[in-house]
């Protein structure tokens, strides 16, 4: 028994646990039965509503293109946000007060504003001041919103990654006569990147989930948006939500599992300094960090 909260059960406790388990199982089964019954009552179990998902047409016309658009927006955002975040994360650790201050203000500002506001604002800005075609505009707006928000979250991850390294690393670099830039680029960053990888992969989950906002508010044809087109076509609102929900769960579950596999692997490997950042260590650490006035956090949700 791994938990410290209770003893290894004896015969009586075992019997009690079985009883609790049975009680909970019965309650839960009743709950599921009730949901099944309600779905039946409302005619949501009719095969006609579920059949479209067994045909290739529903997938090739709606779901797969939607999934591709979701992944496209997420991938573009990540590719732009990562270097931007690295620059800002390093700038926040600068020795010059004005660089540190400016980068800090920008990062804290964009971190405390909801992604949705950034997307809506970017969308309107593209309408008024640029000639981006109305076809491309939703993608541009979604990517802009995601980049601004996630670059500032990634900046915090980069900063936490660099700060997680032992102080001796940069002291040794200074001792052998490396300049500040050299210390950063050849000693600190390479080690920080390995420490940050799991946190970066976890942030991908957040980006994938946030693309759904663009689908509802800006009509970007991603998975959730394609769902409504599909449901309008086959009149199967509830089944379409269930299928789309499962696709999101599988996609993000793969990413989360990959992140924790990476974390476990990096912890074992001897090449790194042993510091590995998961999503919660990133959020807990910055409180103790100089120069930060720690406000709008919550990057992992």
């Amino acid at each position, binding site marked *: 028994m791994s938990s410290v909260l209770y003893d290894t059960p004896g015969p009586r406790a075992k019997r009690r646990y079985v009883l609790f388990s049975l009680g909970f199982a019965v309650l839960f089964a009743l709950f599921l039965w009730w949901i099944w019954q309600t779905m039946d009552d409302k005619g949501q179990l009719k095969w006609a509503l579920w059949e479209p998902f067994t045909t290739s047409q529903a997938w090739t016309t709606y779901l797969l293109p939607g999934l591709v658009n979701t992944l496209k927006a997420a991938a573009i955002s990540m590719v732009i946000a990562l270097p931007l975040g690295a620059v800002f994360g390093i700038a926040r650790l600068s020795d010059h007060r004005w660089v540190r201050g400016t980068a800090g203000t920008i990062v804290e500002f964009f971190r405390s504003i909801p992604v*949705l506001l950034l997307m809506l604002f970017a969308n309107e800005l593209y309408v008024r001041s640029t000639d981006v075609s109305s076809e491309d505009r939703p993608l541009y707006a979604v990517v802009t919103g995601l980049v601004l928000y996630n670059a500032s979250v990634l900046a915090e991850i980069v900063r936490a990654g660099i700060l997680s390294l032992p102080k001796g690393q940069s002291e040794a670099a200074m001792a052998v006569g490396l300049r500040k830039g050299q210390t950063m680029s050849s000693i600190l960053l390479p080690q920080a990147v390995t420490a940050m990888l799991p946190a970066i992969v976890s942030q991908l989950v957040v980006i994938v989930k946030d693309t*759904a906002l663009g689908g509802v508010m800006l009509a970007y044809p991603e998975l959730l948006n394609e769902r409504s087109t599909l449901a309008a076509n086959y009149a199967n609102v509830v089944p379409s939500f269930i299928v789309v929900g499962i696709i*999101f769960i599988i996609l993000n579950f793969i990413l989360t599992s990959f992140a924790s596999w990476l974390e476990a692997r990096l912890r074992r490997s001897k090449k790194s300094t042993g510091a590995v950042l998961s999503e919660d260590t990133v959020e807990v650490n910055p409180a103790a960090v100089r120069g930060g006035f720690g406000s*709008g*956090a919550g990057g992992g949700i």
Partner: protein
Amino acid sequence: MFDFLDGYDVLGAFWMTVKLTALSALGSLVWGTLLAAMRVSPVPLLRGFGTAYVNIVRNIPLTVIIVFSSLGLADIFGVTMGAADDFKVQGFRLAVLGLVGYTSAFVCEAVRSGINTVPVGQAEAARAIGLSFSQVLRLIILPQAFRAVIGPLANVLIALTKNTTVAAAIGVAEAATLMKKMIENEAQTLAIGAVFAFGFVVLTLPTGLLLGWLSKRLAVKR
């Protein structure tokens, strides 16, 4: 200078955001703590349920959950949250329901990480004087765990404040809904953006500072 604000109830929209945040925070604190208790309980089935809930809900976009609560729960299943005739109240309550369901998964994880910070000896001593599992959890572990997780819970609360904007997807009249309307109708896109950005900074910055200070003050010194 601020005449573009005329005729718009900006404060009312932000009040709606605050109400959404407060109610959802309360709900998800209760449900999240219960889930955390399930995840550390000795009954395997409860543990399994807690784990499954967290892993499933965490991986669904909040937007999907909120939109489903309106199009699925309300329209198809007739879940009206006791406000069948008032569409606005119904939307608000459905949004709170969705936010609680989603946020509690993160509250659960935060509380569970707090439980891990309590030294093993505490629970062993509590068991040694004959306390049962629920007594150990209620009297010894959770009070200390909560003081340890004020920081992480503050992060969840700030994220929740920002996530309430998703309620715009089902037409709840909160800040994001109003901003969308205003930037479509008025010319001063930048100024409107700045006003709403400022509003969220005002909401989240003091929360972060206050709870950050509290978490340092109340943390159990070991």
